[in-house]
C-alpha cells in the first residue's frame, strides 16, 4: 500500500506531493491529465510580432483547427483561454455536471489543472488575512518560502511589501513595458498623496523566472504567455510534476477519473474509472489528499460521504475589468519587447473598513485585435484602424474584491439517474454588491489620477475570477464538513484537502499561491504523521 494517494495534478496536488516525496513518503497521484498535443508544438520560439509577420501556420494555433478561438457574443469567462489552452476545461462539464444559475463554472481535468493557464500572480496572505484559518503567517511563512523556491518567483520589495510578505529567494522583477513604465512614473511623482489616500502601486509579483531556475527560464519577453509556455519561464504545476516523475517514491496514474473514496481500517480506498476505457480500478493508501479543485473536491467529498442535498458554502472573488486610455502614451511609442502577464499591482484601502481591493494593470496586444473589434459599436474597418492606433495606449485594469460566506452562496449535491450533479447558488447580498460597485469607483478614481481615462467597465459575471473556495473551511473548531488546522476533513480520519476548499474567506489577492503554500504545509504535516 502506498503512503498517500493524491487526487489531481493542479497547484495543490503537486505541491503537497513535492513535500511528501521530499520527506521520503511514497505518493500515488491519480490524474485525468488532459493535455494539448496539437497546437503548442506548432508555436515558434519567436517574438509575437515577428511570428505574426512570418508564420504561415499561425491560423492553426491562433484560431484553432475548428475556429474555436473565435469568440462570439459578450466577453465571457475564459476569454484568455486561447486554442492551445482550451484543453484545460475539456471534459469537465460532462464528467462533473453542474447546474449553476447565473454563476459561471470552470473546472479542469487537465494536467496541471486550472494552474495550466494560471496568470501567475503571487499574493501571499498577511497574518490578518490568515486569522480565520486558525493558522498564522508564522506557521505558513516557511511554506511560502519553500514554494517560492520551488516555482520561481520574481518581484521587487516596493510599496506593496506590507501587503505581500516577501521571500528571500525572490528573483528580480520583470522589465516593465512602455505602457506600465509611464503609469509607474506618474505614480512615483504623486506617491505621497496617493499613499495618504490609501492607494499603493508596485511591480507585479509573478511566478516567472527572470533567470535560469531549476532548468527553466529566463523569460524571453516574446509576449506569448497566453499561447505557449516558452522556456517554461512561467510556472505551471506540470513542471513540478515532471520533477516528481523522476523520483522513485512517486507514481503517476494518468487517464483516470476519481469517482469516490471510502475509509478502511488502515487507510483510504479510492474508486476510479479509466478515462478512455471506462474500466474500474481501486487504489489504496494510508491517507488521501484531495486537490481536485474546490468544486471537483466538493463533488467527490459529498458523493463519497453520501451527503446529497447538504449545503456547503461557496466563495469566489468578484471580478471586473476596465480598459483605460493611458494619456501618457499619447506622445510615446511602445517598444516591441514585452511580457503578456500583469505589469503592475495596486492595492486600495477602503476607508473606515478593513477591506482592500486588489487591481492589476495589463497591456493588450497578443490576445489579438479582432476580439476587441466586436466590443466597439463601429464598423469593423474603422474599429480595426482605430484599435491599431489605440492598443499601445490601453492600460487594462483587472479588479478583484474580497468574498465572505453568505446564505445565498452555497453548493450541494443532487442525485441524478446518470451521475450526481452539483448545484451551485451564488447570490451576494445587495449590501455586498453595493460595496463592490463603490469600491470599483474608488479604484477607477485612483487610476484616473494616474492619467488613465476609463473607457468601459466590464463585469463578466459571478464566477469569472475562477477563484472558487470555502466549501470545507479550515477552522479551530467546526462541524463534520469543516477541516481542522491540519486540513483534515473532520468527517474523516485520513482525508486531507489541499486546494481552495479550506479557505474560510477570500481576500481579494488571489488564491493560487496560497493554495500551493497550504498544500506544502499539508504534505509536510502528513509526512511527519506517517513517519
Amino acid at each position, binding site marked *: 500500500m502506498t503512503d498517500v494517494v493524491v487526487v489531481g495534478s493542479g497547484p495543490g496536488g503537486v505541491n503537497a506531493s513535492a513535500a511528501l516525496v521530499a520527506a521520503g513518503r511514497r505518493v500515488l497521484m491519480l490524474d485525468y491529465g488532459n493535455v494539448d498535443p496539437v497546437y503548442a508544438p506548432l508555436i515558434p520560439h519567436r517574438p509575437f510580432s515577428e511570428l505574426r509577420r512570418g508564420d504561415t501556420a499561425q491560423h492553426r494555433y491562433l484560431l484553432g483547427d475548428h475556429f474555436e478561438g473565435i469568440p462570439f457574443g459578450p466577453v465571457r469567462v475564459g476569454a484568455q483561454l486561447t486554442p492551445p489552452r482550451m484543453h484545460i476545461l475539456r471534459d469537465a462539464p460532462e464528467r462533473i455536471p453542474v447546474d449553476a444559475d447565473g454563476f459561471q463554472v470552470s473546472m479542469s481535468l487537465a494536467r496541471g489543472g486550472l494552474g495550466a493557464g494560471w496568470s501567475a500572480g503571487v499574493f501571499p496572505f498577511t497574518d490578518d488575512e490568515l486569522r480565520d484559518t486558525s493558522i498564522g503567517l508564522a506557521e505558513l511563512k516557511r511554506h511560502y518560502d519553500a514554494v517560492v523556491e520551488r516555482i520561481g518567483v520574481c518581484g521587487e520589495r516596493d510599496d506593496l511589501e506590507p501587503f505581500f510578505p516577501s521571500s528571500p529567494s525572490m528573483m528580480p522583477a520583470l522589465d516593465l513595458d512602455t505602457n506600465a513604465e509611464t503609469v509607474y512614473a506618474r505614480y512615483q511623482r504623486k506617491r505621497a498623496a496617493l499613499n495618504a489616500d490609501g492607494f499603493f502601486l508596485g511591480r507585479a509579483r509573478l511566478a516567472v523566472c527572470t533567470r535560469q531556475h531549476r532548468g527553466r527560464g529566463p523569460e524571453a519577453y516574446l509576449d506569448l504567455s497566453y499561447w505557449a509556455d516558452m522556456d517554461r519561464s512561467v510556472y505551471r504545476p506540470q513542471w513540478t510534476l515532471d520533477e516528481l516523475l523522476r523520483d522513485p517514491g512517486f507514481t503517476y496514474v494518468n487517464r483516470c477519473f476519481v469517482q469516490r473514496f471510502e475509509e478502511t481500517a488502515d487507510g483510504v480506498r479510492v474508486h476510479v474509472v479509466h478515462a478512455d476505457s471506462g474500466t474500474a480500478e481501486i487504489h489504496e493508501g494510508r491517507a488521501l489528499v484531495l486537490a481536485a479543485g474546490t468544486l471537483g473536491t466538493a463533488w467527490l467529498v459529498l458523493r463519497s460521504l453520501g451527503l446529497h442535498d447538504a449545503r456547503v458554502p461557496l466563495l469566489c472573488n468578484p471580478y471586473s475589468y476596465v480598459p483605460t486610455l493611458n494619456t501618457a502614451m499619447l506622445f510615446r511609442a511602445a517598444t516591441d519587447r514585452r511580457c503578456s502577464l500583469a505589469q503592475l499591482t495596486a492595492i486600495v484601502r477602503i476607508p473606515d473598513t478593513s477591506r482592500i481591493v486588489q487591481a492589476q494593470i495589463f497591456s493588450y496586444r497578443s490576445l*489579438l485585435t479582432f476580439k476587441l*473589434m466586436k466590443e466597439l459599436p*463601429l464598423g469593423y474597418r474603422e474599429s*480595426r484602424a482605430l484599435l491599431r*492606433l489605440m492598443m499601445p495606449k490601453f492600460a487594462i485594469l483587472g479588479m478583484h474584491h474580497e468574498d465572505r460566506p453568505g446564505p445565498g452562496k452555497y453548493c450541494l449535491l443532487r442525485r441524478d439517474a446518470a451521475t450526481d450533479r452539483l448545484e451551485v447558488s451564488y447570490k451576494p447580498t445587495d449590501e455586498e454588491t453595493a460595496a463592490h460597485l463603490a469600491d470599483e469607483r474608488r479604484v477607477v478614481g485612483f487610476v484616473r489620477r494616474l492619467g488613465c481615462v476609463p473607457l468601459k467597465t466590464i463585469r463578466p459575471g459571478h464566477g469569472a475570477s475562477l477563484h472558487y473556495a470555502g466549501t470545507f473551511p479550515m477552522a479551530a473548531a467546526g462541524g463534520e464538513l469543516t477541516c481542522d488546522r491540519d486540513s483534515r476533513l473532520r468527517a474523516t480520519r485520513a482525508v486531507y484537502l489541499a486546494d481552495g476548499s479550506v479557505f474560510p474567506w477570500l481576500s481579494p489577492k488571489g488564491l493560487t499561491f496560497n493554495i500551493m503554500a497550504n498544500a506544502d504545509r499539508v504534505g509536510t504535516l502528513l509526512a511527519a504523521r506517517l513517519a
Partner: protein
Amino acid sequence: MNAAVDPERDLEDEARVFGRYLVGRPPSAAIVARYVAASRTLFAEVSPPGERAVVTFARRRPWSVGMLDAAAGLVRPGSLLRGKLLVMGAILEASPECAEDFLPRNAAGVAFLVSVALLGTLAVLRAVIGIPLHAAVARSAA
C-alpha cells in the same frame, strides 16, 4: 451556375467582398478557402430571413458593406453580418500577409489625434447613411 443557388460560390464571393472591405485589398485564395471552411463550421444554423437578406445585399453590392456594418454595429451587434465580418477579420489577422493591418501602430501626438478624429468622423457618416439602408434591406425580406 447561378450564384444565388451555389452556396460555395456565394461564400467565396463573400470572402472577397468582406476581405477587401476590411483591409482594402482582395484576400488570397488560402484566406478565401479558410473563410468558406469557417462559415460552414460556425454558421451551420439557418439565420432569420432579414439577417440573410442583409448579408446577400452586402455581397452583391460591395459599396454597401461599410454602411451596413456601421449600422449593424449600433443596432444589431450580434447579427449575421457582424458575425461573418468578425470571422473574416479573425482569419485576416491570423494570416502573415495581413499581419501589419492588425498589429498596433505607433502613432503619437498630433498624428494620433488627427487619425482618431478622421476615423471617428468616417464611422459616424457611414452609420448615418447605413441605419436607414440596413432597416430597408432587412424589411425587404419580411
